[in-house]
């Protein structure tokens, strides 16, 4: 289903609280959708800036995720590595409307390219 530039990627309830689900993008990088403890949703390219670990498999705490490979903490808001580490993962605009998760189409294509 399409709402202008927003793509409906599924119900909020499909993403576990403090968990993540993934969306492969044909010809590009997989997108990871995160749902935080306060029920906000964030979307990032599913790739740690450090050694490309799948961020979707990390532990979500506050508005950050700890990469499963080497425990880098990545801000879900900016995609920037937190603390001493330096690096950034592209973020993608996402919103929740009526219990549905909507992902920005243009940004998904751009980030995945």
């Amino acid at each position: 289903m399409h709402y202008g530039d927003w793509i409906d990627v599924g119900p909020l309830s499909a993403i576990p609280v403090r968990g993540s689900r993934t969306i492969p993008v044909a010809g590009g990088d997989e997108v990871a959708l995160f749902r935080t403890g306060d029920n906000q949703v964030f979307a990032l390219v599913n790739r740690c800036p450090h050694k490309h670990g799948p961020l979707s498999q990390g532990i979500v705490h506050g508005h950050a995720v700890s990469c499963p490979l080497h425990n880098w903490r990545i801000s879900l808001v900016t995609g920037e590595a937190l603390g001493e580490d330096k690096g950034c993962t592209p973020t993608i605009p996402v919103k929740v409307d009526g219990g549905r998760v909507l992902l920005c189409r243009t940004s998904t294509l751009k980030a995945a390219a």
Partner: protein
Amino acid sequence: MDFQGQVLTNDDAEEAGGAAARPRLVVIGNGMAGCRAIEELLERDAGRYRVTIFGAEPHVNYNRIMLSPVLAGEKTFEQIVINDHAWYADNEIELVAGDPVVAIDRAAKTVTARSGRTVAYDKLLIATGSDPFIIPVPGKDLPGVISFRDMKDVDTMLAAAAKGGEAVVIGGGLLGLEAAHGLSLRGMKVTVIHLMPTLMERQLDEAAGWLLKTELESRGQTILTGADTAEIVGESQVEGVRLKDGRLIPASLVVMAVGIRPSVALAREAGLAVGRGIQVDDHMVTSDTDVLAVGECVEHDGQVYGLVAPLWEMCRALADGLVGKPSGYRGSVTSTKLKVSGIDVFSAGDFAGGDGGEDIVLRDASRGIYKRVVVKDDKIVGAVLYGDTVDGNWYFDLLKKGEDISSIRDFLIFGQAFAQGGGQADPKAAVAALSDDAEICGCNGVSKGKVVATIQGGACTLDAVRATCKASASCGSCTGLVEQLLELTLGDDYAGERDVKTVCKCTTFGHDDVRREIVAQGMKSIPEVMQRMSWSTPDGCSSCRPALNYYLLCAWPGEYVDDQQSRFVNERMHANIQKDGTYSVVPRMWGGLTNPRELRAIADVVEKYNAPMVKVTGGQRLDIFGIKKEDLPAVWADLNAAGMVSGHAYGKSLRTVKTCVGSEWCRFGTQDSTGLGVQIEHMTWGSWMPHKFKIAVSGCPRNCAEATIKDFGVVCVDSGYELHVGGNGGIKVRATDFLCKVSTEQQALDYCAAFIQLYREEARYLERTAPWIERVGLDYIKARIVDDEVGREALTSRFLYSQSFSQDDPWAQRAAGAEREQHAHLGEFRPILPLAAE
């Protein structure tokens, strides 16, 4: 315009020349928004419009948000009426109650009501509010299934409650909880079913939601979170609600309070622009300049609102526009200050924090208080308060004004009185000013004088104070005060040293403190520990969450529900993540034994899923590499079919029991080391530990199974079994310490179980047996395992009890469909390619 002395009914106003010259304003909706808009209009220019209000309900205008007190018996309907009949008469407003408008003809500029009555308008105001959302489940139309929106619903609930019995409320938001509270007060046994993991998740964060749930449960309500309704059952009348997990909850009344939707049907049929609500500009004008809309039915700047405060602001802007002095509505920043079933809660702004947001958290476990203020760039951006909401308005005011709070930041969380109280610019001064008998630690009843005396008596660190006089040793909410007393008493000699390493930056407590309090206070969930022990973050971090999850699992076997989101990836996926994001899979081979059937199954899996590598591990089993997360359940199903279970090669858990061939084949073998290893593995597999745990059994002192670099090693000798503990390979190799010698296989098994349980109960999370033994000393281990026979037997039986819950193959559960979302993508995104030109 002067129309003093004119007494007109609106019907004869049609004919009265002077009045007829006034434009006619028709309002659809006699609720809070519609009437408030008219009140605002009357205040500005009472004679400007001739007003007709249509209402669907057969009542005058009443305060909808006060329906809960009516249900609870605290108020009568008369007490919640906002405008009585006299108000309509005095202001020459025609009220058409109980006759809803069913059509708008924008071309003819008329509205038609259900009775057929048609009224012309010059300006039309739509204030239809919102409709309750009814979840589309079977049985939703049965008698006894209602929503909680108007006086009629309240009457239905009161009638049902008079008969007693059981009620189910679907929806754990504000409205649902109010309904549950009212029905419970009226004597019904109430169960609240809530889809989300915590109550009121839109207004409260997890910690506050947990406090609310605990409080409501203590009042006798049953709260089921994470519960999804499958159907409402009953023949001619509702009889109960069935959940998707199969549970059936009997009920003679079901209240659906899962949410509201802007009521837009009428506007949509009239061809007005409608998004989520009726779209309006800053002056509440819709896509038709003569049609306005206000309240919960509108969408302004992409936002729809379900609270009262925005509605007041909209009505002001609307009235300004109607009298030709447009001001404009700019959207609302909302706050929620509520009494939920008598409990005060408040939230405002973006309490999620976000980019650069920092949390200031105050938890007072003994008083049931939780406060959280989110600060960004020295400004308050959000707040959540539970139990004590006095300062809600102050925070909200600072938030709306965007005031710089850097100068009062240190006191902000203590509230307005403290932060703005004169002469308390220095928190230390405030503490210094306390009298000696002022209580510092409420949990343990320790006064300031006692704390100071303890410090003067030589307790120079926080940990020493906690250990000596118990101040701040229970919930930790007075930790700041104790630290200030240390500073005051010791002066420059105090630099904040700690004897105890804290679990992480989220807490001032160490691992041992947390474990002790979990058991002592009977804490049974992660949010409960974080609340009662004053965690400084809303939901911990990747260090403390897995630790707490393990501690709770260890303390409450069979009772604690494992939190998957607090597990490291490998334990959540039951496989080992590799650097390319694929997983390796290691099925269990008991004691290192295998057979053709298992080997064939492994070979088949390797071929079927194109695993690029298979390797023999150091623990005597086979590791299959390169499996994708989506394929894991199918791989496991294939391995399960050949009788194999998870090898837990991924977990802080029992890994392998390595064996040599022993007396059955080996000319040097003294005992059946293979058989004993298999027995030990059957006893210990599936147990979660502070860290990984490896066992080996060697059949003679030549020690081919390398038992002396394992966490627990058995070396068989002619006269029995030598037991060794605390060894590991790894970065720093450590050979085992000799624990004792036993004479039978059963003793070897019992001692092994006791040692594991002691390690499980007392080691810190991520501490292997080697550093643990070096920390507590081998003598302590010997005293507990060898010398104390009763204690050893108790440890053994606690381990076996715990194992009765943990030996459930996680692979088989996943292969059967458990946690399916862990292995499946949410969806797939394929950019639509432009169509090729013909």
